[in-house]
């Protein structure tokens, strides 16, 4: 269970660039929740994910995951609990290392790293099986440099790496936004498949309203650093893009301005 309470974050405090990113956030996710998060630019969606991951510190508030207070842990220590996929496909993998080396790094997430072999033969066999599930032919290219792969391939690999060690929470930060439509659909389908198969708790930030409605069991809309809509269960299943937009303008008191969202 994820419990966020009293969370606040302001960037560049005390300067002319001061920007309130998270005004006040209270959120509770049950185990197995797959939550999609939408909202315009600067709504605070990615900030929430980065605060959970520990990329930066909140001004105040607490983030508790399965009884563990995250805010007191540095980013690399939180990694044992979290799986992360980023918007930029280049961010989630080490380009100078091979596919099997990247996977081996991920399979040791949260474990002690000593002077044992970085990747073992048994692991390599497991990696082949796991890569087959991606259906991208990567299982034949274990020793290929990740830098040679396409954005979609790298994103699928990142997804596999994020879920290899079962995460308490999977963070998907607009992870399909930088991909072409066909690849984006494939990576999204893969994400759903993995989350369902493993019964993971997950948060997916997206700009695409249709994806947000069709994916997961709960939808949250953020606006100016706050949650303005929280829809789940049967209500979410019946939701349409038009209705969502109408409810957004009622909740936020203004029309949906983001071109990106309208086009999506």
């Amino acid at each position: 269970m994820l419990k966020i309470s009293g969370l606040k974050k302001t960037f560049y405090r005390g300067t002319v660039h001061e920007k309130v990113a998270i005004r006040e956030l209270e959120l509770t996710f049950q185990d197995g929740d797959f939550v999609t998060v939408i909202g315009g630019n600067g709504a605070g969606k990615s900030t929430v994910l980065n605060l959970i991951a520990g990329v930066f510190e909140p001004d105040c508030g607490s983030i508790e995951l399965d009884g563990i207070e995250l805010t007191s842990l540095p980013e690399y220590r939180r990694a044992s609990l979290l799986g992360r996929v980023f918007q930029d496909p280049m961010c989630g993998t080490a380009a100078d290392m091979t596919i099997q080396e990247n996977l081996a790094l991920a399979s040791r997430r949260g474990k002690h790293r000593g002077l044992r072999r970085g990747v073992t033969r048994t692991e390599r066999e497991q990696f082949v099986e796991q890569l087959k599930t991606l259906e991208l032919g990567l299982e034949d290219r274990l020793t290929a440099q990740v830098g040679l792969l396409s954005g979609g391939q790298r994103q699928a690999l990142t997804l596999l790496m994020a879920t290899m060690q079962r995460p308490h929470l999977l963070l998907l930060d607009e992870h399909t936004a930088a991909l072409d439509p066909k690849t984006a659909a494939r990576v999204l389908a893969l994400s759903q498949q993995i989350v369902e198969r493993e019964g993971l708790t997950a948060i997916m930030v997206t700009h695409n309203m249709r994806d947000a409605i069709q994916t997961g069991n709960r939808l949250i809309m953020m606006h100016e650093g706050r949650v303005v809509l929280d829809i789940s269960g049967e209500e979410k299943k019946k939701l349409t893009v038009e209705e969502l937009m109408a409810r957004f303008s009622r909740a936020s008191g203004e029309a949906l301005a983001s071109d990106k969202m309208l086009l999506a």
Partner: protein
Amino acid sequence: MSHMLSSFLSACPGAVSQGILWGVLALGIAITFRILNYADMTVDGSMCTGAAVNAVLLLKGVSPLTALFAAAAVGMLAGLLTGSLHTRLGIPVILSGILTQLGLYSINMRILGRSNLPLLGVEGLLSLRDPYHAILVGSVFALAMVGLLSWFFTTEQGYGIRATGSNAGMARAQGINTDSAIVLGLMISNGLVGLAGGLLAQYQGYADVNMGRGAIVIGLASLVLGEAVPFLRSHFSLRLFASIVGAILYYLVITLVLQAGLNTNDLKLLSALVVTVALGLPTLRQKRAAKRAQTAALHKNAPQQKKETV
């Protein structure tokens, strides 16, 4: 002409032996500049610290091998300092190394007691008086280091350092303490640099407070020369080995130009030029390729240009 050739050939063993010892330093630089992606400026100081500690210990009657271990150890301390300046105090990468390097100058003077300390009356493991023996001893050290590093960088810890250098954000997301990885990488690198300093002090028969000056540039020049050798790229350990080969090539080239009558004082300028060209060329090539691709896109119907092989 034949006189020049014969004098070059007679100078070759000396150049090769010196190259191998500088190759150990180039290995250290490969770890920071290539694997860790950290432009470490500590080298100019830590190399001399290694040489100084080694010289003083030798004169105190310590065995040459123990003195070399000590040289490597103080090198690692210098790396620890630079790494801590960056990771604990948030001092920028380049400045962290420069601060250590500058501070080490005073420390090196303290260790040596004067600017030049000759190793009178003591024997090291190797000496420039017997270059063939020096090549043998140097090769044992250099190959042992290549072997040790090749092993280390296939361990979990080694993977952590490589991932940190390749993509620090990803490394943290995979639970790697990137600060520790940076410090550890700098320690290993400067340990090698200190060892190279110690070996060179024994080889030359003295330690000098200025012997590290420009060491980074010589190391980098060796690195890029080694990378230019075509059949040393395919494997990780071969790429490490290439640094040693590069340093040997570097000293052969230096010997050649000195024989051709170049002033010794102009050497540093030459080294700087070699590194500038080697590091700058890929960028210029990329720009030219990008421009060519642009022009090609503009004139899609024009006949295709023959690909130039550079």
